[in-house]
């Protein structure tokens, strides 16, 4: 059953150390050589309420998406985890506390909720924690020990991770936690014997050398820091907050400045101000924040000032479901704000790209003097992968601003009309280049103007500039085995992984299915996209929104009406959902 690809869920409340246990598990499994993709889902309520679930998939190859079903459920709190039982795979392993402190009523144990095929493994988690460490909270570590024993893993991959986790809390705390982990391990070994469950494959040693286990949020923060970010302004909002928190800690250490602002308008305002003054600046927010920023982003477009905004999308509209994922800000990112305000919108599809694209975003913002919105989503921001990130290099820190030539001194036209649309940009402090910028339509030297000719000319220049940025944006990537396809999937953002896994599966079945990943949302590579479309009988665009926002944007490039797979479950799209739809469509084509 469990050979080279397992999905593990840990479920409890936030008070049960659920997320912490997931973090330790991921780190240790990464050390053990597994490829890791993990995602926590948690309520937006404060500590002690609501359900926390950490989901991790471990395997040999790089993990593209989550599996549809859960192979192992570790329950830290049965009153929460029973809700996870519908997602269990056949013959799933369920690890739970079989000696809670008090007797429970019928249905109070997860044992009441699993199907007959489930493999229940009761381990007295709380008792073990109390005996070994006198702390009930340690049950998460007892559970990890039990997991290691059940699957015949080497506990030495886990012990150093636990030590590391508690290193700031002193030797005593470390010892206690290791003791609880060992107690879980030994008790399970004694009760169930070695390899009570079929053992996992042995991963290759040092396979993950150089890789780090990192979330999308952390990768974004790291990328921005490596790219020499100088200013960060932010306001807390789920699920983008971790980026801000990392910046608050790290940016000042690197000589940059961090400022918590009073709202998202102020955050993007300060970013515009800082960029105007010549510094690399960014902010991160989610849909509601992006909405507040819309006017200021359009100011950035009009004044041609760089700004980088991460929009970690969540379920909307309005406050929506803050901790659930969705890809429904595409329209707002591309079109949001007054008037025609072209800006760059880019969407990474995995954790590694979160790092690469933030570096790119910061550079493109400077080069093209424009707001750049990087669209991520809760699933991508919070998911953790072990990835090999590029070495920090001077390339990443390279100043991409195009400054005016000295010859322009004294006669500087800030908004000079050029072929590329890019007008060399002076920054305050430069002598002889004083100019004003305004959100009003303006002449080439930045003075307000309302004549038809100037407005048309400037609109044209701004759009031309952004379309030119296409040359610097990541190209669409195709995954097809044949030239002519029955069905082509076009995907973006965090849904790419699941779509690719579905595509590969379909191709293995001999189906003529291909996939195009679109990382540049605006401007988009219309030639490339329509070329792909022309080779497909049907086009299907799966995305996590109700209206099919990418389909609305690029659908016109296809000769036929594009098909849509829209989901608003708040959860990442499932491989099986895409495959089912693909097979439905193919069945109709081949009729």
């Amino acid at each position, binding site marked *: 059953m469990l050979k080279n690809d397992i999905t593990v869920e840990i479920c409890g409340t936030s008070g049960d150390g659920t997320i912490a246990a997931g973090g330790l598990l991921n780190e240790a499994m990464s050390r053990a050589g597994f490829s890791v993709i993990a995602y926590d889902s948690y309520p937006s309520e404060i500590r002690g309420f609501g359900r926390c679930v950490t989901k991790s998939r471990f395997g040999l190859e790089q993990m593209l998406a989550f599996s549809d079903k859960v192979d192992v459920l570790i329950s830290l709190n049965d009153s929460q985890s029973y809700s996870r039982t519908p997602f269990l795979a056949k013959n799933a392993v369920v690890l739970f506390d079989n000696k809670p402190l008090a007797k429970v009523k019928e249905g109070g144990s997860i044992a009441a909720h699993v199907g007959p095929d489930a493999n229940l493994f009761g381990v007295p988690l709380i008792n073990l924690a109390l005996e070994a460490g006198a702390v009930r909270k340690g049950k998460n570590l007892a559970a990890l020990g039990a997991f290691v024993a059940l699957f015949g893993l080497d506990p030495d991959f886990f012990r150093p991770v636990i030590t590391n986790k508690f290193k700031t809390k002193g030797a005593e705390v470390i010892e206690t936690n290791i003791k609880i982990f060992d107690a879980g391990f030994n008790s399970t070994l004694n009760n169930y014997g070695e390899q009570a469950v079929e053992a996992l494959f042995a991963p290759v040693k040092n396979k993950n050398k150089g890789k780090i286990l990192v979330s999308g949020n952390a990768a974004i923060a790291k990328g921005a820091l490596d790219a020499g970010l*100088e*200013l960060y*302004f932010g306001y807390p909002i789920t699920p983008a907050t971790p980026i801000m928190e990392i910046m608050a800690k790290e940016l000042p250490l690197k000589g940059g*400045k961090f*400022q918590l*602002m*009073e*709202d998202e*308008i*102020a*955050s993007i*305002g*300060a*970013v*515009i*101000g*800082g*960029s*105007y*003054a*010549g*510094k690399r*600046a960014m902010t991160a927010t989610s849909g509601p924040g992006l909405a507040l920023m819309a*006017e*200021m982003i359009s*100011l950035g477009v009009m*004044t041609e000032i760089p700004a980088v905004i991460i929009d970690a999308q969540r379920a909307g509209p309005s406050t929506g479901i803050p901790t659930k994922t969705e890809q429904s800000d595409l329209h707002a990112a591309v079109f949001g704000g007054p008037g025609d305000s072209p800006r760059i919108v880019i969407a990474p599809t995995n954790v590694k790209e979160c790092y690469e694209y933030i570096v790119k975003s910061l550079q493109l913002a400077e080069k093209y003097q424009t707001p750049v919105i990087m669209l991520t989503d809760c699933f991508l921001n919070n998911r953790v992968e072990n990835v090999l990130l590029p070495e920090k290099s001077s390339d990443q820190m390279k100043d991409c601003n195009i400054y005016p030539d000295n010859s322009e001194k004294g006669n500087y036209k800030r908004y000079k009309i050029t072929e590329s649309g890019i007008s060399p940009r002076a920054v*305050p*402090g*430069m*002598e*002889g*280049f*004083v*100019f*004003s*910028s*305004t*959100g*009003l339509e303006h002449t080439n030297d*930045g*003075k*307000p103007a309302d004549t038809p000719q100037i407005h048309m000319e400037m609109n044209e220049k701004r759009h031309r500039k952004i379309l030119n940025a296409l040359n610097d944006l990541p190209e669409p990537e195709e995954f097809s085995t044949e030239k002519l396809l029955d069905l082509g999937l076009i995907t973006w953002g965090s849904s790419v992984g699941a779509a690719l896994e579905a595509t590969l599966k379909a191709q293995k079945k001999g189906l003529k299915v291909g996939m195009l990943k679109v990382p540049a949302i605006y401007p988009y590579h219309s030639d490339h996209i329509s070329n792909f479309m022309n080779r497909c009988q049907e086009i299907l665009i799966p995305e996590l929104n109700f209206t099919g926002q990418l389909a609305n944007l690029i659908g016109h490039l296809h000769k036929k009406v594009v098909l849509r797979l829209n989901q608003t479950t708040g959860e990442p799209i499932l491989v099986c959902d895409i495959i089912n739809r693909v097979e439905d469509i193919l069945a109709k084509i081949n009729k």
Partner: protein
Amino acid sequence: MKTSGKALAEKVKQIKESDMLSIRSESLPTWCPGCGYFGIQQGLNNAIQQLGLSHHKIVNVTGIGCAGRYAFFNDAYGLHVVHGRLLPVATGVKMANPELTVFAVGGDGDGLAIGAGHLPHMVRRNVNVNYMLFDNSTFGLTKGQISPTSPIGTVSKASPSGNVDTPLNATLMALSYGATFVARLYAGDPKHNTAIIKEGIKHEGFSIFHFYSSCVTFDKVYKTWNNLKDNVHPLPPTYDHANLKHAIDHVLEDDFSMGIIYKND
């Protein structure tokens, strides 16, 4: 000491070549003739010139409204932003380059209506930005609606039966938020203002200058030049601008005393 004609000519040439001459830009202000903002600009320009600030190291971040146009009338770096958001933008500019002298310039609608939420936070951050709040109790650019500082009873197209909402007092707000430099100034007294503006620019931290001005086009009843002129007066000789409690008490009683209301270095 007497300066020779040649030396004087040399000095004038030097000044002409440097950007210390006049901060006024080639664009003439589009404010209505007789607008109080001319007076404010004059006091401000004098202060900049007297302090010898290099124009390329000045940034004017301005809001929307008549006052916001200030950016275009100045030979310095200007950033005319969206309505009400000049303070956050100015924060970004100053934090990006502390060597710049940053002015945030906006009117009462911009700063006390749409943008009022930023003021307390600007005060909390205490970033070294000079906020020039031009208060003429009118939305001038949209043709004369009442603003948050309009007196009760003001009749406008937005208040045909007269304003019933209590006016805000920006000076008192700034004091209560904990601003470390608060000045209240009369637009019609550029000479007096110059010295105070200079002191505010030198103040390390956020400075707010609350200018009483008049809108000659839309307000013929309340904040007219005559009404202002008749009412404004200097702070009492015994006034201690280092005492916050005293300052608040004073402002609660006297709406028209002009000068440095509070300063804490």
